[in-house]
């Protein structure tokens, strides 16, 4: 481990530590926004772990997330709460493995299309099962407060950042970068490309399901149409790409401004959120390819060139 590594780890730990102190300052509106940010930070960072190096755009986040909320909804009365995120993570990984095995050996377009409808598919099936068994939505009434959820998310964020850092230094991470550059070369270099992609997709699916399980108490009432709302998948993609997937901290740089902007728009012009989402997509493609990370690196490079 080099000196920069130690410094970066220290900085990250410090930042997370400071973030964890927030509920001592405020437990109202600010905490609520911070919880949303923490949620998207975890989702977008884990999304970028897979989609960043491979360039496969996953729209499955909502499906995993919804799965997680249902795990909590069904299990919170009978099982100890701390087991629920773990069960959700396991189920999320299994779902991701199934989806990955079907789609990840094919080109990116198939993957996007399949994940695009995945949340809607799971929603239709869950609704159908509920109708047949005479169930409706369910109440998740627990003593868990927003502050507890926030701390859980901060803890999960620490795990995700650490995992991302370790993966980037591992052969798996290197393999994914090669796959993202040229899959044919990767295969002939001896990389089991399908396995590598499925493994990382499982990581990202497990994390998203885990987040869903942790957040379920926040919603109090869970029904399929809100738990599997496809919009979530798009928000995560936008935030991750806006920040940039080239660095581990990239998605965070997208989450903070976009959450604030989204909050502002949905308060003042609730009908224009989709327009905002659309414009953000176009902004990324036409003005900010590589996101804020890409911009930062371009500026840095120019600065260095002028410095010479």
């Amino acid at each position, binding site marked *: 481990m080099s000196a920069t590594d130690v410094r970066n780890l220290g900085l990250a730990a410090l930042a997370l530590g400071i973030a964890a102190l927030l509920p001592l300052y405020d437990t109202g509106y600010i905490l609520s926004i911070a919880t949303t940010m923490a949620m998207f930070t975890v989702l977008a960072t884990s999304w970028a772990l897979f989609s960043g190096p491979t360039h496969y755009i996953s729209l499955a986040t909502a499906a995993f997330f919804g799965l997680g909320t249902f795990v909590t909804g069904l299990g919170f009365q009978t099982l100890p709460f701390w087991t629920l995120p773990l069960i959700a993570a396991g189920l999320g990984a299994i779902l991701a493995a199934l989806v990955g095995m079907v789609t990840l050996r094919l080109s990116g377009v198939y993957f996007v299309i399949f994940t695009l409808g995945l949340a809607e598919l799971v929603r239709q099936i869950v609704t159908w099962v509920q109708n047949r068994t005479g169930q409706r939505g369910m109440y998740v009434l627990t003593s868990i407060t927003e502050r507890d959820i926030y701390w859980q998310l901060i803890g999960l964020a620490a795990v995700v950042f650490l995992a991302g850092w370790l993966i980037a230094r591992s052969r798996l991470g290197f*393999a994914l*970068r090669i796959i993202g*550059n040229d899959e044919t070369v*990767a295969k002939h*270099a001896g990389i089991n490309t399908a396995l590598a992609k499925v493994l990382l997709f499982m990581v990202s699916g497990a994390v998203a399901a885990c987040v869903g399980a942790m957040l379920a108490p926040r919603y109090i009432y869970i029904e399929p149409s809100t738990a599997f709302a496809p919009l979530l998948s798009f928000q995560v993609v936008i935030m991750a790409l806006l920040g940039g997937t080239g660095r581990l901290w990239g998605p965070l740089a997208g989450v903070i401004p976009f959450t604030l902007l989204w909050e502002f728009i949905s308060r003042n012009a609730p009908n224009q959120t989709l327009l905002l989402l659309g414009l953000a997509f176009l902004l990324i493609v036409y003005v900010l390819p590589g996101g804020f990370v890409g911009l930062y690196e371009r500026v840095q490079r120019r600065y260095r060139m002028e410095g010479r």
Partner: protein
Amino acid sequence: MARVILEVRDVTKRFGGLVAVRDMVFDVHQNEVVGIIGPNGSGKSTMINMISGSFAPSGGSIRLNGQEIAGKPAHRTAQMGVARTFQLVRLLPELSVVENVVAGAAFGHRRRWGREAEQFARALLDRVGMGGQINMPVASLTYINTKRVELARALASEPEVLLLDEWLAGLNPTELETGIALIRSLRDDGRTIILVEHVMDAIRSLCDRCVVMSSGVKIAEGTPTEVLADAEVIRAYLGADEDA
């Protein structure tokens, strides 16, 4: 004679109704350079692609050190000891030159990782004559240097068999001389090489043996001098002109 490394037996490949390769049989011995030559469309690339695992033969067997590799996915054949370059050079544009070579070392036949892999990659880049250019971005390399990096990547797994798919194509006369000398020096290191090539000079000066293909079948096999004097080979190369 040296021990047989690669054994190709009755290999056939059909694409729909078209037979691209029919009943190919040949051996490659240790420390030998074998050329697969033939006119365009004779099935050379298909043959190479079946050895490297890009696609499975429709029938027959390919054995590497006695183990069946026919039909195995590309990453398995790579791990078992087949490394290749591509007809159109394929480098990894977002990776550094050294990382491009480490990519070959990290997952293949003889695996290296970390500092060891990096040192090995640098040594190989030096070996193929990259000199001081290893810190340049991949996109700004000259053509022959991209070929060098690709060759180093293929060598990085210390393969049992190295497949060079028209590695010399597109080089200018000076570069060609350098390239031929480089490949010859690899043979002197004791490598086993199969090359698909159009450049006759290279075939004459590099190959111990040649397998000549035409319309998917083997029409001759022997030393370059023998096969290039063979009447059927001459007909295969020039035959089209007679009809025209």
